[in-house]
C-alpha cells in the first residue's frame, strides 16, 4: 500500500475510520499472552473484582494497538515517526471501538515532510477512551 503524497494532503483530511468488534474475554486473553501484559485485572474476573472493578477490562495497549492499525492502514509503518497517546477512560467488555484520525498540521521535521495527526478512539456510546497524536513522514 503506497503512502499518500504530501502534496495531496490537506489539513482537515480525515483518515478512514477503523471499526472494531465488541471487546470480549477471548480478545483480552489473546492480547495478554501476545503483549506480555499478564496483569490479572484483564483476564481474571476474581482479580478484577478484588481491585474494585465490576469485571475484567481491556488493556490500554490493546486500544493503542488498534490506533496503530488505523495509522498503518493509511501509510506504511516505516513512515511512522512518533505515536503518543493518553488513556482517558477504561474500555469495558462489550465496547465496540471506533478509531479516528485527522490531519492537523503539515510540517518539516528533521528534514522530512511530515503530517501531524490527531487520533482518538471512542466506544459505540460516544465515550472517549484514548486520544493522541502521531507524526508520519510522507513522500
Amino acid at each position, binding site marked *: 500500500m503506497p503512502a499518500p503524497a504530501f502534496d495531496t494532503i490537506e489539513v482537515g483530511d480525515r483518515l478512514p475510520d477503523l471499526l472494531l468488534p465488541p471487546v470480549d474475554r477471548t480478545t483480552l486473553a489473546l492480547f495478554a499472552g501476545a503483549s506480555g501484559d499478564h496483569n490479572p485485572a484483564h483476564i481474571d474476573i476474581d482479580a478484577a473484582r478484588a481491585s474494585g472493578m465490576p469485571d475484567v477490562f481491556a488493556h490500554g495497549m490493546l486500544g493503542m494497538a488498534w490506533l496503530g492499525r488505523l495509522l498503518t492502514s493509511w501509510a*506504511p509503518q516505516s513512515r511512522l515517526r512518533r505515536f503518543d497517546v493518553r488513556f482517558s477512560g477504561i474500555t469495558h467488555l462489550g465496547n465496540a471501538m471506533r478509531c479516528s484520525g485527522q490531519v492537523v498540521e503539515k510540517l518539516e521535521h528533521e528534514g522530512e515532510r511530515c503530517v501531524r495527526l490527531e487520533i482518538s478512539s471512542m466506544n459505540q456510546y460516544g465515550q472517549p477512551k484514548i486520544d493522541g497524536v502521531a507524526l508520519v513522514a510522507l513522500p
Partner: protein
Amino acid sequence: MIDKKWIGQEVGHSTLIIERGRLKFFAKAIGETDPIYSDEAAARAAGYADLPAPPTFLFAAEMDSGVLFTFIDRLGIPLSKVLHGEQGFEYLVPVVAGDIVTVSSRVKDIYDKRNGALEFLEMESTVTNQDGVTVAKLRNTTVVRN
C-alpha cells in the same frame, strides 16, 4: 507516597528476541490482517527485511522483561491500584523478526495530584538492537490510585 529518590535512576534492562511466531500471535490478537505482519514474503515485498514488529509491539518487549511490574512491586504498590495513563513511541529504525532488542528503562519523574490521591510514575526507555543501534524510544506514565 512513592519515594522521589527514584527519579533519574535506571531500574532495569532486558533483552528480547523478536520472534516471527510471537509477531504473528500479536497480529492475530489485535485483528491485524495486513499480510506484511504475518507473511514473510509480503513483508519483504514491502521493503522490510522480515516481518515488522507492529507500532506498539515494543511495549511487549518492555513487559516481557517484567521491569515495570517488578519495579511497581518493589515500590510496594499493588498491581490492582495501577492504570496506564500515557504511552509514547519514537521510531528511529524499523524492528523486524530476527532482531534482538534490549530495553533499558529509567524513572523520568514522580509526582502526585489531588493531595496524593493520584500518583504518577513516568518512565522512559531506550531500545537498542543487536548492532547497538538505538531503534526506538518509549515513554509511559503509570497512574497509581491511592
